[in-house]
């Protein structure tokens, strides 16, 4: 069933990103909640649904967060899909509103941790990793995605200098984003020669763990009028394909056709793409699975495009996680917030000209070898 056309994203908020902080996780959620409300004319009393995605939130959850924030809600959602969770939470919020469980939903995502905290998190991320990867010295997600990238390079001839186009293009956008932790220009040469982390991965293939949060408000489009963003279609898929430690594809390939059919637009109708960028190789695999090029042909596709905000395919136009930093599960909402900002024409110096429609994609929940979860939405400006 297609998503309701009466419900959309009517507000958004983004916190500052910090490499190190003594601030609490709740303080980041408070910051983005206030900023999301300020972006629309919705009041605290109108919010009757709450969704949250955060690795560091336990032992708290969506309901105890509601208590912290003094909210009485009729729908509460705790994301379980890692970096695919925030996009999935928006899809589920629309469904909840359609079903009458809530009218206006605050969707939050974020974490407060640093590099050491990230390794601690990954060592204990789930039972399979803890028992069967951590004792090998697996190097966290870097070690796993090095395996995926080498396999893609070997299978399809993909080269590092091609993948580097992603990091370099995104950094050109980050230069214009005051909130990005990494905003000095990055050359392909610097990308190629950076410090080795988990060969074939080098420094600029990896994200910088940081603290921060993101928010969107999902509700009746008429509450925001010309500032609202429609969700033309949205899908999620988990654990596809089952049983492979390092697949070169993900759940996107299963819902891609329905995603575009329901939206009434194909990949080449997108004015920008916000793809989950934990690593350039996963952006490349998303571009393949989401039909921007054929499976295995992404290398030459990357060579033909400029991915900066003003390039031929604007990609992660705020710099993405690769330049802003990865605020844990917040990394799964950074693309959503940037897409809403672009569609509202509020992206300032990095505003994509004629940004009417874009695709946002999520990926995450690293299990035994790779991210298990995928999610995507196609968004369009109302006015």
């Amino acid at each position, binding site marked *: 069933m297609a998503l309701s056309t009466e419900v959309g994203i009517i507000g958004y908020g983004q916190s500052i990103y910090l490499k190190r902080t003594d601030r609490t996780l709740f303080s980041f959620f408070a910051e983005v909640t206030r900023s999301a409300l300020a972006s629309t004319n919705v009041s605290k009393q109108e919010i009757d649904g709450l969704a949250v995605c955060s690795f560091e939130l336990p032992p708290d959850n969506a309901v105890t967060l509601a208590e912290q924030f003094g909210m009485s809600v009729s729908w509460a959602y705790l994301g379980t899909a890692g970096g695919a969770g925030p996009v999935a939470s928006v899809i589920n919020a629309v469904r909840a509103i359609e079903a009458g469980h809530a009218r206006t939903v605050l969707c939050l995502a974020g974490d407060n941790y640093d590099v050491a905290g990230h390794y601690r998190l990954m060592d204990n991320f789930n039972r399979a990793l803890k028992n069967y990867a951590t004792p090998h010295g697996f*190097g966290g997600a870097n*070690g796993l995605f090095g395996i995926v990238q080498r396999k893609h390079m070997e299978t399809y001839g993909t080269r590092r200098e091609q993948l580097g186009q992603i990091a370099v293009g995104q950094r050109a956008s980050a230069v214009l984003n005051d909130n990005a932790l990494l905003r000095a220009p990055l050359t392909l040469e610097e990308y190629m020669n950076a410090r080795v982390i*988990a060969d074939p991965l080098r420094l600029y293939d990896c994200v910088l763990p940081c603290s921060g949060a993101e928010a969107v408000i999902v509700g009746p489009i008429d509450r925001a009028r010309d500032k609202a963003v429609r969700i033309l279609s949205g899908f999620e898929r988990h654990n596809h394909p089952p049983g492979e430690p390092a697949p070169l594809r993900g759940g996107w390939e299963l819902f891609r056709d329905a995603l575009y059919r329901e939206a009434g637009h194909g990949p080449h109708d997108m004015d920008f793409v916000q793809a989950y960028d934990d690593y350039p190789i996963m952006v490349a695999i998303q571009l393949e699975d989401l039909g921007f090029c054929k499976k295995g042909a992404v290398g030459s596709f990357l060579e033909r495009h400029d991915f900066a905000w003003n390039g031929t395919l604007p990609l992660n136009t705020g710099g993405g996680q690769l330049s802003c930093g990865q605020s844990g599960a917040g990394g799964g909402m950074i693309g959503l917030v940037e897409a809403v900002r672009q569609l509202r024409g509020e992206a300032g110096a990095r505003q994509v000209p004629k940004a009417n429609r874009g695709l946002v994609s999520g990926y995450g929940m690293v299990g035994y070898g790779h991210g298990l979860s995928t999610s995507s939405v196609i968004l369009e400006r109302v006015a």
Partner: protein
Amino acid sequence: MSTTEKHYPQPQSDRDNEIFLAGWRQGRLMLQSCGDCDHTFFYPRPLCPHCWSSALSWKPALGNGEIVSFSLIHRPNHPSFFDEVPIVLAEIRIPEGVTFLGRVVGAAANSIGIGTSVRLVSATEAQNYPLPTFEVNTA
């Protein structure tokens, strides 16, 4: 080997994986097979992930395999590995029809490639590592 097994992060033994972990302490890679659908799988589970049968049995793997892909980890997750970099973490395919993640150790580990033949380390050397660990098969 400057770091002994007790310093590495250890897998947590439970009713589902105790045969696997006990097997490795004797240098064997124990795998579960399903009596209903004949699939062999890794990691240990309380049900067959293919058909959800509980008719599972254990048997040791032959011990050889082939590298499907790998990464050379210069920044391991845990300090106990810091003086052993690069850690060779590989996706390994074994004749039993299973692929999984395994560490490859030994002098030749830095010269491996995709398709390199590997085998389990000796039962004596197995004592040094918490999980089934491989070396380049020079035979």
